[in-house]
């Protein structure tokens, strides 16, 4: 019933944000759009080229395979991290002195800079001296991430799981803690088995938190760059050459500004579209 006084002065307070966003996002984005429809031969000379870069891109095998690689990678890490994160959150204590210990341990990987994560796992996976690499070989499992695509993928996925599962854990834990005790007591009284408690109380109450977690993890993993560049450099061969690596190689390595810009835009649209689609689906479900 309460309503606010209508007053236009507040727009002035928002103005700095508009300017910031313009410099941060809009102007760079428009520059990229500009590049994507032009051809350049250096010397700052540009020629109109229409949609040619986009057509070329969509027929480019290299782009298709790195896109496929990217989708596989994101799917794999989501399938591992979300259930694993939820599982760990469920196992964490809700009361007592261990709570803060667990929370600090969980937060640690999130505090490590990305390039350091890459270096850490690079060293750890070295087949001759690394703990992981040497250990696996000692167990009789042939492992060499610089030579075998499987080993490289295994290491990259493991590194991402190590780095980012914590985020899912912390989000889920916050969601779990906010469920009132009465729900658990009622479930006990109703004779619900642990699985039923999870299925009918915890999961429904965690829906919002899980939506956010999946969304964040999708976007981040789809844009992964630093850690992989440091760890494998996209190799062996092109085995771990994800979209972002491909893009950077095109733009900086080849100085193919037009094609790289077109690729950036397609890349951006994929992320935007998927996130939007996912979000609307989850929210529509809510409305029903």
């Amino acid at each position: 019933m309460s309503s606010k006084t209508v007053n236009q002065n507040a727009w002035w307070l928002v103005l700095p944000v508009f300017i910031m966003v313009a410099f941060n996002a809009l102007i760079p984005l428009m520059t990229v759009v500009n590049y994507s429809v032009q051809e350049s031969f250096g010397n700052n000379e540009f020629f109109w080229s229409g949609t040619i870069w986009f057509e070329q891109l969509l027929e480019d095998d290299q782009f298709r395979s790195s896109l496929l690689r990217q989708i596989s990678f994101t799917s794999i890490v989501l399938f591992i991290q979300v259930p694993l994160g939820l599982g760990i959150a469920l196992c964490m204590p809700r009361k007592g002195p261990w709570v803060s210990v667990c929370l600090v341990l969980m937060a640690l990987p999130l505090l490590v800079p990305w390039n350091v994560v890459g270096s850490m796992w690079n060293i750890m996976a070295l087949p001759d001296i690394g703990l992981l690499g040497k250990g696996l070989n000692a167990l009789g499992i042939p492992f060499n991430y610089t030579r075998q695509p499987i080993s490289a993928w295994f290491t990259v996925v493991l590194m991402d799981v190590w780095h980012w599962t914590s985020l899912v854990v912390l989000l889920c834990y916050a969601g779990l803690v906010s469920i009132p005790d009465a729900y658990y007591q009622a479930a006990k009284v109703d004779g619900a088995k642990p699985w039923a408690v999870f299925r009918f109380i915890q999961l429904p109450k965690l829906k919002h938190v899980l939506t956010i977690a999946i969304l964040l993890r999708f976007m981040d993993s789809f844009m992964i760059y630093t850690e992989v560049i440091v760890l494998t450099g996209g190799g062996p061969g092109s085995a771990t050459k994800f979209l972002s690596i491909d893009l950077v190689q095109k733009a900086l390595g080849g100085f193919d500004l037009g094609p790289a810009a077109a690729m950036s835009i397609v890349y951006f649209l994929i992320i935007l579209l998927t996130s939007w689609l996912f979000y609307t689906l989850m929210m529509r479900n809510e409305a029903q």
Partner: protein
Amino acid sequence: MAKITLQNLRHSYNPEPKGEEDYALKRMSLDWADGGAYALLGPSGCGKTTLLNLISGLLIPTEGQILFDGRDISNTTPERRNIAQVFQFPVIYDTMTVYDNLAFPLRNRGMGEAEVDKRVREIAEMLDLSRTLQNRASGLTADGKQKISLGRGLVRSDVNVIMFDEPLTVIDPHLKWQLRSKLKELHQRIRRTMIYVTHDQTEALTFADQVVVMNNGEVVQTGTPIDLFERPMHTFVGHFIGSPGMNVMPCEVKGGQATFAGHSVQTVNARNYKGKGQKLEIGVRPEFVSFAKTGIPVDIVKVADAGRYRIVETRAANSSIKLLVPDGDHIPVGKTHLAFDATRTQIYENGWMVGVRP
């Protein structure tokens, strides 16, 4: 259904309680008959929630036993005590329909679908939920949700006791009486043991046949609403129940005769008093005080209009005495005298009614 017995029950949150003050719940023994409607009434922090949690099994008592039908269940887990509970805020399973919510406790215990269906429909009928059975439970109003919480308890035939923890908190004040009516009707129909925990006197007195009033971790009186009104066993009960509460004035007792501010007062129990006179008080409810030609001289301090009657505040010897005067009756100005109804005036020693407890 079960008879509930509390034997020398005592609880402390301190693992090594030293003195009496460490106990959140002081030693108590109670007998609750099978099929009765009981209420635990007291201000926040009086120990009623502790007692509730002891009965439901969320807490294990420091001392004493809880018996259901003579069986000691003090150390049994909550799920094995067969208790149903309705909480302050409705607990429903959001993703299920009303039907599935009601069926949930039965299905968890492996009951056949035909039997489940029969029981769910029977209970839904009782609670006026039949028309909404196929709706999502999360879309119901607060009172609908509370009915579901209650229904999940009623649907099982093996429930020993149904407990209510301030269940009407979220209900619109104008609709409360309807749910109170429903609860009373349900209790009459199914005759299960029910325990209602609240800090609100209307909730407790309306629902229960027997009300247990608690204060500072101990039971101060158990009785019917009439007992609590007419014979408060403790000055706390007199103060806490009824608005305005009981008048309490310091007094002296000599030779079986009570005197207040130099005037003798006829009481129910002064002649039983043989003690030494530690903190003696007279208690009389405003309903049983009237103006008189002779009696205790007082000054009228304030008259407040309550519509159907007026509350008159008077003062005598540094004590405030209130009385109720029906609308339209004459109220004197300034100085006057008061008379107390001798059959409704009691003597209290250290808070307790004389002759009730040593």
